């Protein structure tokens, strides 16, 4: 089941450079929330702070509070590894593990964390691939074919299946369709629609039509600040902020 995400006074730095300024927003469970804004506005940094991926880069720093359900993400003594098991992440470029078969790619998160029940694993792999709408295309060569040999769109759905296999509560998607052709993009968007029933989804996108199509809520970021956060419909029809309006009508960015 999806859980809500509460963000309070979140700041993030790369070295001396502050990438996020006092972000406060609450993300509704079992809905899709889109994050839009021009390049370099901190969208990716923001969602990477939600599962503590930001701190894996050298010379980075975060302050503020993030709660995912009842987990305090930046609480004392909460290991980052533990949090990432509750928060799936799909990246901009499909990144299957190149030396692993399709099956092992999906099973990786469980297997490498010590899950050993082979029958259960088979079920989870099938269920995850079905949820990612990839099962029918790959079911005959699960263990024979490398994940890297699939097409770009299939690879991205494989990565989604891989993220779903660890049964996260929240799914973060960092421009998941920006490297895909329109047909694959359509498939990924359909998927987001279905996944909302079970997961809370935060999706970063450059594509405003995409945000309008898949997300109930939209946040507009500019220069590391959350300018406006509201129902998607409102953001795209009558935004309260001039800067939001300028951006969505294409006057800058």
């Amino acid at each position, binding site marked *: 089941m999806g859980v809500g995400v509460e963000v309070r006074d979140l700041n993030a730095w790369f070295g001396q450079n502050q990438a996020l300024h006092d972000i406060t927003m609450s993300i509704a469970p079992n809905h899709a929330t889109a994050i839009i804004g021009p390049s370099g506005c901190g969208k990716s940094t923001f969602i990477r702070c939600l599962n503590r*991926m930001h701190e894996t880069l050298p010379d980075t720093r975060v302050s503020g509070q993030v709660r995912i359900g009842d987990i305090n993400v930046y609480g004392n003594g909460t290991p980052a590894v533990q949090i990432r098991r509750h928060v799936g992440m799909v990246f901009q470029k499909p990144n299957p593990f*190149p*030396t692993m078969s399709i099956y092992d790619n999906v099973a990786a*998160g469980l297997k490498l964390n010590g899950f050993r029940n082979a029958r259960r694993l088979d079920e989870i792999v099938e269920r995850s691939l079905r949820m990612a709408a990839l099962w029918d295309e790959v079911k005959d060569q699960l263990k024979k074919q490398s994940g890297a040999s699939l097409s770009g769109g299939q690879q991205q759905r494989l990565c989604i299946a891989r993220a779903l296999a660890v049964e996260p509560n929240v799914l973060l998607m960092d421009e998941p369709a920006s490297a895909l052709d329109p047909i694959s993009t359509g498939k990924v968007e359909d998927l987001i629609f279905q996944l909302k029933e079970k997961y809370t989804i935060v999706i970063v996108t450059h594509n405003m039509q995409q945000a309008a199509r898949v997300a109930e809520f939209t946040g507009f970021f500019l220069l590391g600040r959350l300018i406006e956060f509201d129902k998607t419909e409102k953001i795209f029809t009558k935004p309260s902020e001039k800067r939001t309006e300028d951006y969505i009508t294409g006057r800058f960015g």
Partner: protein
Amino acid sequence: MSQDRISWARTVKDHLATACAVLAILLVLLPLAAIFLYLMQRGLSSINWAFLTQTPKPVGEVGGGMGNAIAGSGVILAIASLIGVPVGIGAGVFLAEYGRNRFGNAIRFTADVLNGVPSIVIGIVAYGLVVFRQKHFSALAGGVALSIMMIPTISRATEEMLLLVPLSVREAALGLGISRWRTTVSITLRTAAAGIITGIMLAFARVAGETAPLLFTAFGNQYWNWKLDQPTAALPLQIFAYAISPYDEWHRQAWAGALVLIVLIVSVVAIVRIVASRGLLKGTN
């Protein structure tokens, strides 16, 4: 018209570049082929079952062989690999994953210097470390000397190959909640395995033919010896001793020994490659 001329010029350049590449390949292969053919010519006639299984005969007696030296080389190289491969890979992992700082740079520089240290000097170091304490020459000392030579090559190869693994692959693993250590072992190292194996094979092939570091470590032995703490024969040592001797029979055996050494190195490298490519999933590149 001018379009045609441009494409004509491009075709010529294309063929020229291809020809240069082919020429370079030939230049690389030529010395190898020449050495191999010459060794076949001089050594093949002396290779027989006795040569591969017997110990050397005293001067003046015909026959005998390098069986003990072949076995000794195998033992010494096994020791060298057992020490050199894990340490080399470990150092390479450290440099790639945690070595983006001055400490890492210092290690990197040290490894490069170590790579350039003359092999005879490494023999002396192993003499001081092992032989001097044990009070006698041994296969172990020879293995230690060769392992020291393997480590910098393997660690640099491991580091380079790990750095070629895209950040996105690491992030995929971290994003799944896999710990950094597991990510390195099961994802990054596995992705880079083919390249690392090539590095290990280069290091192995290089030390397999080394003579100088064995002179006062393994020392050589005219008889069979399976004890790791006793002087042990090795193919390069035997070839060296026979080649500088005044006897025709020994010269012939030295040629045969050199041929066996090359064939063994090529076989080990080939077998490891085949086994490794079976183990890893195909069609990854």
